[in-house]
């Protein structure tokens, strides 16, 4: 087993364990902190996949912005421990069964192979993504900025207290 595979196994198990903690722990703040670990592990996997730009974007967007947003929402709703209520809904067994069936389906497709693996050396990801975003994908790129603007204005409007 090479160092690359060892790094994959360590990062992958960290991602899976922290993801399991996110969906099982009762305290919602602990779930959010496990989510940080999970996002950081995925960023490490991006580095292993030689996608350095995406790894940095993952740290900035997910670890930085989205987690802070979630923690603020937790604070503003004061649902830190969930009181005496159980953490899971009454139909959690059906949820587990559905997720299990879907997992079997995904594993069947993923392991069926063979994938058309191309062994050419990969390009410099930052340069390639930058060129793609201003050439071939310039229209979706601009549209995404409009989507972000509309979503954030809408979020402010929805979250605003009308009584004031």
């Amino acid at each position, binding site marked *: 087993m090479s160092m*690359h595979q060892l790094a994959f196994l360590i990062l992958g198990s960290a991602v899976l364990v922290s993801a399991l903690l*996110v969906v099982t722990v009762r305290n919602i703040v602990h779930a959010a902190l496990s989510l940080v670990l999970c996002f950081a592990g995925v960023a490490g996997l991006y580095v292993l996949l030689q996608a350095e730009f*995406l790894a940095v974007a993952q740290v900035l967007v*997910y670890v930085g912005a989205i987690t802070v947003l979630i923690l603020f929402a937790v604070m503003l709703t004061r649902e830190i421990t969930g009181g005496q209520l159980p953490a899971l809904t009454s139909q959690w067994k059906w*949820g587990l069964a559905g997720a299990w069936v879907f997992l079997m389906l995904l594993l069947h497709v993923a392991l069926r192979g063979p994938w058309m693996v191309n062994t050419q050396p990969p390009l410099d990801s930052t340069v390639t993504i930058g060129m793609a975003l201003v050439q071939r994908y310039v229209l979706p790129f601009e549209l995404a900025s409009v989507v972000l603007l509309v979503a954030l204005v809408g979020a402010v409007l929805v979250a605003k207290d009308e009584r004031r």
Partner: protein
Amino acid sequence: METPLSWYLVLAAFLFCIGVYGVLSRRNAIAILMGIELMMNAVNLNLVAFARFVTPTVLTGQVFAIFVMMIAAAEAAVGLALVLAIYRNVRHIQVEDIHLLKS
């Protein structure tokens, strides 16, 4: 030696299904949003793995992953704003007990 593509696909499949389980079984609306973020991360991992192994000369998957990240950011902002609006009206965010339209 490189890590084979199928390892990444299996890891992403497990991550996605953990997210599905979280969405289907958690009571807290914020925890459901966390499950959605887990699923989006699994999809991004798949896109980047395919970009690395199948099309390493164009990297289309990484561009798609950036768009998924943008949509995830917008989704988190709107979703958490909705959670705050619900909390202001019913003083809790336990999804089993939110049935304002049902009565």
